[in-house]
């Protein structure tokens, strides 16, 4: 078990190094000048050169990269040219905000997807199954910005019962909860269908397994067959998929955050990327990878716990 985690941790560090280096290299391609970005378009060439020298930006990329690694390890995430301040001043609040959004969405997606997926999968090809399946295909097919458009049109413009943006500022009389409704709804709509389909597919497969037949022919009630024998097995395969949604929920929320002006991680990354703010991109990407790899490790570990075949081998 220790070996398992040691290996995974080594892999995590390795991945983060490779990813950060790739980003560093990619950003070398762009005709960007960090000092120019800090000083704005109307600064003179001299001013730009001075700052470049002061920040040591004229040194080779490798040296700067290793320096960056060192700084990052000591907790200094660098200076954002987009926000003109230390990345540390920005990123934590943004992550926190996004975590709120993600946790709520996750707390809805997981039980809902399991419920719908199992209900659909336990009676394949029934009317209920077809309805759930088609509905989940349709909702996942609508891009987030489109569902954002549809929902705001209905609830903000037409009915006027929800605020149009989610700035997490309660000053104007809209509660935080009311501000979270639409972003969460868009995320849930987009993601839920996908997870439902995964759970359903797994459930359908489990229902065709001979041990379900064994359970029925043992004389168990249908409900017991589903709850005692099917669900546990049906959850093994989608477990990883469900965990991977954390990944999407935390780092894939760019569109939702942009639509609703939500001050979160995704919008920070979008703005950072658009202005090629290398410090923000690097720090954000590292967190993204960290979340991705950690969820993966947790996923593998949980999968092991869920599946005795792997647990005892």
């Amino acid at each position: 078990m220790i070996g398992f985690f040691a290996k995974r941790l080594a892999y995590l560090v390795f991945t983060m190094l490779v990813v950060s280096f790739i980003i560093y290299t990619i950003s070398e391609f762009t005709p960007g000048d960090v000092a120019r970005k800090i000083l704005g378009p109307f600064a003179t060439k001299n001013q730009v050169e001075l700052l470049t020298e002061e920040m040591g930006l004229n040194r080779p990329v490798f040296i700067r990269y290793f320096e960056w690694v060192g700084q990052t390890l000591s907790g200094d995430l660098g200076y954002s040219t987009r926000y003109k301040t230390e990345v540390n001043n920005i990123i934590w609040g943004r992550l926190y905000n996004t975590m709120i959004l993600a946790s709520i969405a996750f707390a809805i997606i997981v039980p809902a997807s399991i419920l719908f997926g199992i209900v659909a999968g336990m009676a394949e090809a029934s009317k209920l199954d077809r309805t759930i399946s088609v509905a989940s295909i349709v909702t996942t097919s609508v891009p987030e910005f489109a569902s954002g458009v549809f929902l705001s049109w209905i609830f903000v413009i037409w009915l006027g019962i929800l605020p149009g943006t989610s700035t997490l500022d309660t000053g104007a009389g809209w509660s935080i909860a009311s501000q979270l409704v639409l972003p969460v709804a868009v995320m849930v709509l987009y993601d839920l269908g996908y997870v439902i389909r995964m759970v359903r597919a797994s459930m359908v497969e489990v229902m065709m397994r001979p041990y379900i037949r064994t359970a029925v022919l043992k004389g168990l009630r249908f409900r017991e067959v589903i709850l005692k024998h099917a669900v546990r097995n049906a959850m093994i395969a989608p477990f990883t998929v469900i965990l991977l949604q954390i990944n999407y929920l935390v780092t894939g929320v760019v569109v939702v955050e942009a639509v609703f002006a939500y001050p979160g991680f995704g919008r920070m990354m979008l703005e950072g990327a658009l202005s090629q703010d290398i410090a923000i991109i690097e720090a954000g990407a590292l967190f993204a990878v960290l979340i991705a790899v950690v969820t993966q490790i947790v996923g593998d570990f949980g999968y092991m716990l869920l599946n005795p075949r792997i647990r005892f081998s």
Partner: protein
Amino acid sequence: MTGSTKRPVLELVNARISYFTRAGEINVVPDISFTLHEGEALGLVGESGCGKSTVAFAVMNYLGGSGRLTGGRILFEGRDMQKMSAAELRAVRGNKMSMVYQDPMSSLNPVMTVGRQLMEVPIIHEGASEAAARERAIAILKEVNLPDPESVFERYPHQLSGGQQQRVVIAMALMSEPSLLVMDEPTTGLDVTVEAAVLDLVVRLRETRNSAIVFISHNLGTVVRICDRIGVMYAGELVEEGPIGKVFRDPRHPYTRGLLDCIPVLGSDKRSAPLVPIPGQVPPAMARPRGCVFAPRCPHVVPERCSVGDIPTSPAGGDAEHLVQCVREPELPDYRRPQASGPIEAAIEASEPMLSIVHLDKVYRQAGGLFDSAGGYDVRALSDVNLEAQRGTTLAIVGESGCGKSTLAKVLTGLEKATAGKVSLGGVEIGDTAVENRSRAVKRQLQMVFQNPDSTLNPSHSIGYAIARTLQRLKRLAGGLANREARGLMETVKLPADFVARKPRQLSGGQKQRVAIARALAGGPELMVADEPVSALDVSVQAAIINLLIEIQRQRGATLVFISHDLSVVRYLADRVAVMYLGKIVEAGTVEQVFAPPYHPYTEALLSAVPIPDPDVKQKRIILEGNIPSVTNVPPGCPFATRCPRKVGPICDTTPPPELRTPGGHRIVCHIPLEELTVVDPVVKRAS
């Protein structure tokens, strides 16, 4: 056993079973009737697709979403199953009637411990307490001969071997003392020694319990061991039904006769008793012929009588116990086992060796992973294998799964490289040459026929392409020429030349295997390796393929290395036999030598385990306990020591046994002296 005083447990009265698909109704079982009394065991046999399993599940009233009983009645203890409510059905299932399934591994819930799954039965049916259920479960585990029942109770299914899993399933079925036990191919997929042990268990349990059994199998031999009565099914119809002895000694239906004629019985060989395959194939359920379903394949057919109206089921020769569905039954001649028509050919004289294998080792290195180079371990698949095959003869390699016989085939064909030792083909060393590096001449000389007909041909390519491409590669034939010759090869394997345009999915299993043989023949090989070429086929098709192999070998004088787990087939086909266990050859010799004393104790156990479809054959019962050790952990002494019933002592565990050799060239690797081995009785005796 068939006393009329006993009450009937199960009655099928003109049951008609259909599946409903988008294409419409598919009537799988048109009309079937039989009665099963208390304590009676009925074997239902037939080839795949004949509706045996459908009947089994119809009996359980569990046909899935698309299946339905569309006519007749199925009565369980006099009650119509169709009219039972869901609650009544639940009360019956698992309690009064229970089932044992074909694949025990997938029939057990992988995420529940074995004990939990067993406990459910008394809990739901008798409202037993947890503690009582636990006690019952452990008791029944003990009863089905599972070692250390408490530990098995705590284990998950995947931690048990196949035989143990099946014992668990049987235990589960027997827990509530059912009056009816339906067993659907319970031993298919198990190794022959394990199968024997499971069958033995069933026989033993029958003695102590009064459950009626419906035993479904494609293997007539297993039915003989278990059942009192046998029903032969063909295309959804019960064509013959009666007591085991009567049906086997005097089969009255042409299909039953055909079946018996195409099964090699341990003891018969290609020179004395040829196999007679049944021509044609089972008609699809959608295109059932009028009248007798078997008529198109029947040698006794009289179309005006057989293909007109419904064929009644009538007692054979007035025997009410022996029912036959054939209009010509009274006119059929008495049954005789087929005999060689011509003079018996002498065994081929030993000629120069085509293939010789010396001290062959094959070790797989199992890597430990990226960050863990020290964690690997070795898998010893072959160790010190020595064999020879003479030109024009058949060398059979026989053994249970995991014994290394397929690895041997892979090393011969170059799909794997030998770790040590020599393999020479006609004097050319090929053991350390992967197939990519073999010369074209070697590739032409050595070709292979594979086990699984569904994977032997690329489903994306036409038959013609598969063969022509081989001709182009091996014989450097131009496209047009290759296509012409491909058609010629189709004739050789007795397939219509037009089949070259077909895709594999349009062919039946036997036809695919013929194509595979044609492909192997394309280079004009001198040595053909056939790895279980018939094990996935139905018996009637199996016979045809075996005959084809024999015929081709005769015509071309090619050497055949035949790998099989089926001793009957090996006995029938081989000239020389090698018995493998855990990567080692434990016994080798001519077919006559190996199948007669002196036996290696393992060979002896194998022979005793083979189910023989002849109630008159008497077999010694040697039940092997324990499992085959893992190849990662081969015992240092005799590999068979852990299970050997004739173990001499500690020496077997510690010292590799010596190779004993008879003057006739018969080799046995054992610590027991040859003389002692020689004085045993033959395992198989025909009581005539």
